[in-house]
């Protein structure tokens, strides 16, 4: 690793000690975990925060008048403040807690999609979306009579603005729902430019930030995003907690998603009225412990800082692209790309690659990555994917390269 690229305060050895799981062995080999884009490992701070809540301060939130409930409610709501500051939302009410990014998108499709969009309106997505940003819109299309359009990507794996222009030409598009970073190609999309484009064409924009938010600072106001969604578990937090950011005026006009406790202002048999955002969209007992875990994860990444994280991951990605290019075919070549690298190897199926690497202790993902239409666009049925996190080392990427050489020998 180039010393120039390594920020002084980024202490990788110390960071790795924060993640207990990284010292595990798999099949008698040192674990080389290169599947963080699917779900990241958890630092001690996240584990401890959740254990602390369970051991010392736990009750249901927003209900009890007793000490435990008040303390737990405070801890839960403090994470909303923290999350709002994390993405630079204008107000804490703009942060809705969900189970994951998938649920966030479904929430928007179900409420905004049915209330603000009319039959005949169109939604545009791109060719490099995760199924989570395809299927909810298909369901809305089939139930509500909107049109779903697909904007092309270039062969490099970037947004094709000429295609976007075409899709928007007739003025029917009311929402652009697009990834902020492809989970297959690692391409970042130009969020600010896309938001400007959507707004200039009279549409709102939803960004799927599941991948991007892990690797760079996200400022929803600078982007001018209408909706921004992500999951806690890719951000070193627990599974079961996700975030929907939306501008308050939009949230305020949206009807509820799920009905139940906590989302009402009043209930009678004749009629119920809804709480204001964000509680209108948080029916039932929320994921209290997971939310507290998310708060600890946000603290953790912010203590390290995204400039240091991004510099480290940039160096990892550059090294990986260099060292892997002679061994495998890497998909996509976007100018602005992060630490997610999908590849194929002639004669070897992605699953065989993954199994052979696994036996060497190396965890990669293989398959269609919940992006079957993109696989079709790329002309493959599956790929192997290595993805990097703030705890990934250069040695692990070297181990991947060595592992791939052994795979090649088996398939020679």
């Amino acid at each position, binding site marked *: 690793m180039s010393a120039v690229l390594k920020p002084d305060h980024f202490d990788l050895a110390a960071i790795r000690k924060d993640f207990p799981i990284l010292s595990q062995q798999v*099949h008698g080999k040192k674990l080389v975990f290169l599947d963080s884009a699917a779900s990241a490992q958890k630092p001690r701070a996240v584990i401890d925060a959740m254990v602390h809540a369970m051991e010392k301060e736990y009750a249901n939130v927003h209900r009890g008048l007793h000490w435990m409930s008040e303390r737990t409610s405070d801890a839960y709501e403090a994470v909303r403040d923290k999350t709002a500051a994390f993405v630079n939302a204008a107000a804490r009410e703009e942060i809705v807690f969900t189970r994951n990014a998938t649920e966030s998108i479904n929430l928007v499709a179900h409420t905004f999609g049915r209330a603000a969009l009319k039959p005949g309106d169109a939604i545009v997505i791109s060719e490099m979306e995760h199924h989570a940003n395809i299927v909810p819109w298909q369901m809305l299309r089939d139930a509500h009579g909107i049109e779903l359009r697909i904007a092309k990507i270039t062969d490099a794996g970037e947004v094709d603005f000429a295609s976007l222009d075409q899709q928007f030409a007739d003025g029917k598009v009311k929402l652009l729902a697009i990834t902020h970073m492809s989970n297959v190609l690692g391409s970042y999309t130009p969020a600010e430019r896309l938001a400007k484009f959507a707004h200039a064409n009279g549409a709102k924009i939803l960004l799927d930030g599941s991948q991007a938010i892990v690797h760079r600072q996200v400022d929803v106001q600078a982007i001018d995003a209408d909706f921004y969604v992500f999951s806690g578990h890719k951000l070193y937090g627990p599974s079961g907690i996700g975030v929907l950011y939306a501008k308050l005026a939009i949230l305020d006009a949206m009807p509820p998603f799920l009905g139940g406790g906590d989302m009402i202002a009043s209930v009678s048999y004749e009629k119920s009225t809804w709480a204001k955002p964000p509680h209108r969209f948080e029916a039932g007992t929320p994921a209290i412990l997971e939310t507290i875990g998310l708060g600890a994860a946000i603290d953790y990444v912010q203590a390290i800082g995204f400039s240091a994280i991004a510099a480290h991951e940039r160096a990892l990605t550059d090294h990986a692209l260099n060292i892997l290019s002679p061994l495998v075919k890497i998909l996509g070549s976007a100018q602005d790309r992060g630490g997610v690298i999908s590849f194929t190897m002639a004669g*070897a199926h992605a699953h065989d690659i993954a199994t052979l690497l696994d036996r060497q202790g190396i965890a990669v993902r293989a398959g269609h990555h919940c992006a079957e239409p993109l696989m079709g666009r790329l002309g493959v049925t599956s790929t192997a994917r290595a993805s990097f996190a703030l705890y990934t080392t250069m040695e692990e990427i070297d181990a991947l390269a060595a592992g791939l050489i*052994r795979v090649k020998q088996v398939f020679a």
Partner: protein
Amino acid sequence: MSETADLYQSIIMARIKNPSHAGKPETYDAEGEGDNPMCGDRVHVYLQRDGSRIFHESRGCAIMIASAELMADAVAGLNAAQIAQRRAAFEAVVNTGAKDPALGELNALAGVSEYRSRIRCATLPWSALALALEEDQKNG
């Protein structure tokens, strides 16, 4: 790489490089398909009743293709009941790792038992064959 030699042994690698039952035959009596939506693997099996000859069109991993090849060898000339019996014995082998002397070269896939997520790859051609046999029986 001894740690994977048990699964990716020469018999499997040889079969995927030189398959002898791959491709769609000009005539066949029944067909069946196996799909793994988790990974996109797909196998299409064609059955010729005359001598129970099997052909397959496979798009997938080495384990699946090798399994289709070895299956075609192993069921040649057998009737439906015998094939069902062989399938059950094969599934026991890939689930437990205990080789079955009666299964011959099919035992090459016994190592898949150590890779839980890959057992389905080995059994997929057999599922497709079972569908083909069902169709064949319906056709009488």
